[in-house]
């Protein structure tokens, strides 16, 4: 049986300590710049904060993973290299990388440093994963949220590294690391700037009838009735019209969150080494609730007990949850 490590999000030092206290085996976090894919206003760590909180985590046996999982545009590679050097000095336990140039730099300049392949690298086949393992010595791959459990089980037998899968949080629809939707509307790039539907371009307006419109850079992404659950104005979760869909429909996906709590035993059995909880942009309250619930569930499963999964629906987007691709390929 795999160790089933619990990998938890930390958007701020307080959230990091919360995750550690709630039983995270590892936390993942990023600096306050474009080097990570949650470069959101007021979020993330200064070098001093990371130094301090990494010590807090390490003192309690929790690992610290640093996300360097964006793609530096030509001419700006140094920012990513400096972040890697800094991470090594701070003593993080692994880097989560996507860009080949960044991976190559860390593998050459800091040999022996543990590399995890970010979901942003979109490695969804054994061959692609092996490419990163053999090229840069990647020790773990974070799988895209598009594979079924039988497919994960099959991949496990064909790759030389560990597997990490998302189990809870934002349900990414597009192949990560290949999405320029935000840049198309806002001029800020998910891949290069670490930004997705930036708050600076988001506007909510309440209409006279109590309904609410969410806009991104002036484009109406969705409109919610007075009683309807809302979601982020992310382009892939908006409602649009098509020639034969005049009423407006979720062309890509509904506002819904991934929740695999019921599939944990199957995932462990399929050989998944680590479970990732999404949500560095979410609050301490979210971190505390989700990490506590999954800590208990994983401990129950490992002890051979029936896992009692707390209801986490309230924390999900649109307050709806899905098992997405993991359960059935009809999702596609």
């Amino acid at each position, binding site marked *: 049986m795999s160790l089933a490590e619990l990998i938890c999000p930390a958007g701020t030092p307080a959230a990091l300590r919360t995750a550690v206290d709630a039983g995270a085996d590892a936390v993942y976090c990023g600096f306050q710049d474009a080097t990570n894919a949650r470069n959101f206003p007021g979020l993330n760590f200064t070098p001093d904060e990371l130094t301090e909180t990494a010590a807090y985590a390490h003192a309690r046996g929790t690992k610290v993973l640093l996300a360097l999982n964006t793609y530096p545009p030509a001419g700006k590679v140094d920012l990513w290299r400096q972040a890697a050097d800094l991470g090594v000095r701070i003593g993080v336990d692994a880097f989560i990388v996507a860009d080949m140039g960044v991976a190559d730099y860390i593998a050459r300049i800091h040999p022996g440093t543990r590399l995890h392949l970010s979901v942003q690298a979109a490695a969804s086949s054994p061959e692609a994963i092996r490419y990163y393992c053999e090229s840069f010595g990647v020790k773990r791959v974070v799988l895209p949220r598009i594979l079924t459990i039988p497919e994960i089980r099959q991949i496990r037998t064909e790759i030389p590294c560990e597997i990490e899968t998302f189990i809870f949080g934002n349900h990414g629809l597009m192949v990560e690391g290949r999405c320029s939707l935000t840049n198309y509307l806002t001029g800020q790039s998910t891949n290069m700037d670490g930004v997705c539907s930036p708050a600076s371009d988001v506007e909510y307006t309440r209409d006279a009838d109590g309904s609410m419109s969410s806009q991104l850079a002036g484009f109406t992404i969705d409109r919610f009735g007075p009683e309807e659950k809302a979601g982020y104005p992310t382009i892939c979760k908006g409602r649009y019209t098509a020639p034969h869909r005049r009423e407006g429909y979720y062309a890509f996906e509904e506002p819904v969150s991934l929740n695999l709590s019921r599939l944990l035993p199957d995932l462990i059995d399929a050989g998944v080494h680590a479970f990732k909880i999404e949500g560095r942009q979410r609050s301490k309250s979210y971190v505390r609730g989700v990490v506590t619930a999954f800590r208990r569930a994983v401990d129950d499963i490992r002890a051979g007990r029936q896992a009692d999964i707390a209801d986490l629906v309230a924390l999900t987007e649109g*307050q709806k949850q899905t098992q997405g691709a993991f359960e059935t390929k009809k999702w596609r």
Partner: protein
Amino acid sequence: MKMSAGIASGPPLAGRGAVSRLACALVQPLLSRVVRRIAARHPSLFARLGPHQATDFLIDPVELPFALHLRPDPQALVFRAVPRDAAPRAGAVIRGRFMLLLELVDSEEDGDAAFFSRDLEVSGDTEAVVRLRNALDDVDGSIAEETARMFGAPGRAILARLRRSYVAT
């Protein structure tokens, strides 16, 4: 959920006129003390606000007789109760039931979850709200408890009663 209807149909006329002005005058000294104390104890909060230290926030607890005006500028901190009809033009408005807002300040509630359920309403500069949220979220411990402690046993008693009354609804 019924609470979202609570926002939309909240008492639209409360927070105007003489009663509101009196309420504002009564709570104002308290607010000034609270915010100065919190600012002094959590200086890192301001770094996360970045350029939005100069933004005017209007925090609107729908069932109270007034709204709150916050400008988190460490050089010239503003936190005051304002009648709704005399509220300043704000860069960002955060509206919800008082207890929810209090829980958000303390990270007992998840802001995104409250927003998804429509219990929380945000308008104006969304980045300002996100920064404020992230800044408050990085504060360890409870600001509400801290505030209550400033007023000794009576303060703690009021907070406890407030929480009980909201749980009951």
